[in-house]
């Protein structure tokens, strides 16, 4: 039986081909096809994400604390240096730079921590500096850029973030490293995608998100878009909470126990009891203060209990004198009160010189400083302080993320001992703890959903099935014009 062969149609439909191309929202890898042998000490999940990021060229590594982001990032940088023969710049939060330099040395990767442009000399290598110092450098000399703890973009002013995005928009190889993003944090994902040159945040929003009718200014993922969205995210990132997310064993990645102790200060409620403001009793003096959860009330409450909370923190530190202690404060007056009570304790606060902050944080990381007092917004991100297993909060704020990140400085993979977290709070502040606990539950539930979606997406690592027909079609003999 003879058969007609279909006439050639390649090139007949260029317009149609264009349409299809636009529809494929998969990010197209623009990295290296041939990836050289990677460092033998990389764990399988680190090797997998590093290979993925090198292949993608511009990619994000969303690795939870302690999974070895920096080693993977440094190895990525090493390959980019080798392939491009140009230096790679790594931007890190304050005081994290020296930590990376040490880690690089340990693995025999050529990386140097620098503060100014004159320190760039000799053969191409990885240069590590702080976000705050980016203005000291001409960025077009770099073949690649690594943003360490890139979720820090969120805490920068919009101008700073936009500046970073435009500064590196011509850099061929870009890597962002941070912990797994909060699943509803479209700002963070949008900033990453924009920085990596994958898609602008507004386009991302209009494609997969809708404005929440109940909450003005809030957006949520469109229900039918959930899979498509995470599949797209998985086309330019890898998201790992445990090695098993990528199909590797979790051996050695089981965290030690964490114990949380709440120490309650009985606030004297007769102070500033105030008077009834409305109703029949308006104007009458109250016997007791009635604290609520408004920001002003919380601040007033905190000032009243500041000294008592500092006493509690100092007691904790004194009772365990062999241990390093990390003390988190939310305000300067809390920090002052704690510092007064603990001899030898040093503080890192926002107003200090960069170099002083850095040396104190480094001293604590090295173990030469016993007690460090600081705020989650200053040292809560990026530092590996797993040598320390005791921390105290002189008070809590409503930010779950700050709390979570602060705890994660010590309670991370690599921590060998049980971690103790002491929280000093007034009984009148119980509302804050309740909010933190609730957010913690929400976060875990959403993260679980995202992990499932990302795991599936990573497994079939292509966004849309590509169409690659290989068989030549034959038409039946009975078809005729």
């Amino acid at each position, binding site marked *: 039986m003879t058969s007609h062969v*279909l006439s050639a*149609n390649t090139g007949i*439909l260029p317009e149609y081909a264009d349409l*299809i191309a636009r529809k494929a929202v998969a990010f197209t890898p623009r990295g290296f096809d041939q990836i050289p042998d990677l460092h033998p000490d990389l764990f399988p999940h680190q090797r997998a994400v590093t290979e993925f990021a090198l292949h993608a060229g511009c990619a994000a590594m969303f690795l939870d604390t302690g999974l070895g982001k920096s080693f993977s990032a440094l190895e990525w940088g090493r390959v980019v240096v080798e392939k491009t023969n140009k230096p790679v710049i790594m931007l890190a939060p304050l005081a994290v730079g020296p930590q990376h330099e040490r880690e690089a040395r340990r693995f025999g990767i050529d990386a140097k921590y620098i503060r100014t442009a004159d320190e760039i000399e000799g053969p191409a290598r990885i240069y590590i500096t702080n976000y705050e110092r980016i203005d000291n450098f001409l960025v077009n000399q770099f073949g690649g850029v690594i943003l360490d703890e890139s979720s820090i973009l969120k805490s920068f002013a919009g101008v700073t973030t936009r500046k970073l995005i435009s500064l590196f928009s011509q850099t061929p190889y870009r890597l962002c490293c941070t912990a797994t993003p909060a699943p509803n944090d479209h700002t963070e994902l949008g900033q990453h995608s924009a920085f990596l040159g994958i898609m602008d945040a507004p386009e991302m929003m209009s494609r997969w998100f809708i404005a929440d009718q109940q909450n003005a200014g809030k957006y949520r993922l469109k229900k039918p878009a959930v899979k498509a969205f995470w599949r797209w995210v998985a086309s330019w990132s890898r998201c790992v909470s445990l090695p098993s997310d990528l199909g590797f064993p979790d051996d050695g990645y089981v965290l030690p126990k964490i114990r949380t102790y709440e120490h309650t200060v009985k606030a004297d409620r007769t102070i500033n009891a105030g008077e009834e403001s409305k109703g029949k009793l308006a104007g009458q003096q109250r016997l007791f203060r009635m604290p609520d959860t408004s920001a002003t009330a919380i601040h007033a409450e905190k000032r009243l209990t500041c000294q008592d909370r500092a006493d509690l923190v100092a007691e904790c530190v004194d009772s365990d004198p062999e241990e390093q202690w990390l003390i988190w404060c939310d305000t300067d007056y809390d920090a002052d009160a704690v510092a007064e009570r603990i001899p030898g304790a040093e503080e890192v606060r926002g107003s200090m010189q960069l170099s002083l902050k850095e040396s104190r944080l480094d001293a604590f990381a090295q173990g030469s400083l016993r007690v460090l007092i600081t705020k989650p917004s200053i040292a809560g991100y990026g530092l590996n302080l797993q040598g320390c297993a005791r921390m105290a909060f002189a008070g809590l704020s409503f930010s779950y993320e700050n709390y979570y990140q602060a705890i994660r400085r010590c309670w991370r993979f690599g921590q060998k001992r049980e971690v103790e977290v002491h929280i000093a709070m007034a009984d009148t502040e119980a509302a804050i703890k309740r909010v933190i606990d609730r957010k913690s539950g929400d976060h875990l539930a959403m993260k679980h959903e995202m992990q499932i979606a990302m795991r599936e997406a990573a497994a079939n690592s292509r966004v*849309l099935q*590509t*169409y690659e*027909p290989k068989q030549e079609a034959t038409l*039946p003999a009975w*078809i005729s014009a």
Partner: protein
Amino acid sequence: MTNVLDQSAGTSWNAYNADTVEFTAGMPTNSIDLSVYSPPFSSLYIYSESERDMGNVDSHDEFFATYRHLIREKLRITKPGRLTAIHVKDLVFYSNSSEKGDRGLYHFTGECIRVHVEEGWTFHRLITIWRCPVKEMQKTKSDRLLYKNFRTDAARTGGGMPEYIAVFRKWNEAMENTPAVVHPPSQFPLDVWQEWASPVWMDTHETNVLNVGAKNDEERHLCPMPLDLTQRIVLQYSNPGETVYSPFMGIGSEGVVAVREGRKFLGTELKPAYFKRAVRNLQSAEENQTAGDLLDTFSGDAA
């Protein structure tokens, strides 16, 4: 050369696992006697995760930009004077997918007609398929159909949504050379014609579909083309032995009807899982057809 992902054939059918636009563009001009199918209803359903899936679109505009290519190629491959019939319906939209935040209908049927005409087809006929609003309400719980709203806020209520078959003709000078489709009165008496000529088909069934053969672990087709509708179209608009084409054959509904009615069938489907089931359905339709012929012969002898 048009390449396909997979292909399969029986004696009276050929099925291709392929992108339908590319495939259709590779077919010979004036080679098809009739095409009948249900296009993807814009972005109402996403049938597959392929970028080639016409249902995988962000907007109706994007859908029609793609579908238009098929409509154009379909005109080219259709014999002069012959027809294409598409099974469509209008789409309800809700506030959360509307820029204005309103709720209403998108006249998908009208857009399909407009684009066919723009691409050179002549709008020939529109059949309204009656569907029971009570069943629709039970299935969709649509705001538009609730008695509660009818009692309290009737401006919100609409009515049932019919389906349509829109028929288009390739009007061309050469159409005289194409053989006429004929209906011997012995097989097609006047009352059959009067029934089929009805502008509204009241007596067809949305449940008359091919999905029953799905194995347990197989994905059911989201929206298979009803067999009774297809059968009327195939019988009214093609002669036995002629070629029926479906550019979206899905699990093979149009093919099964065409083969049963003694036509040749050509179909394409993008989704491998549907393609495989279409092949199975076509194979068994052909086997039954042969068995059916034998039965007819025997009964004929006996008479």
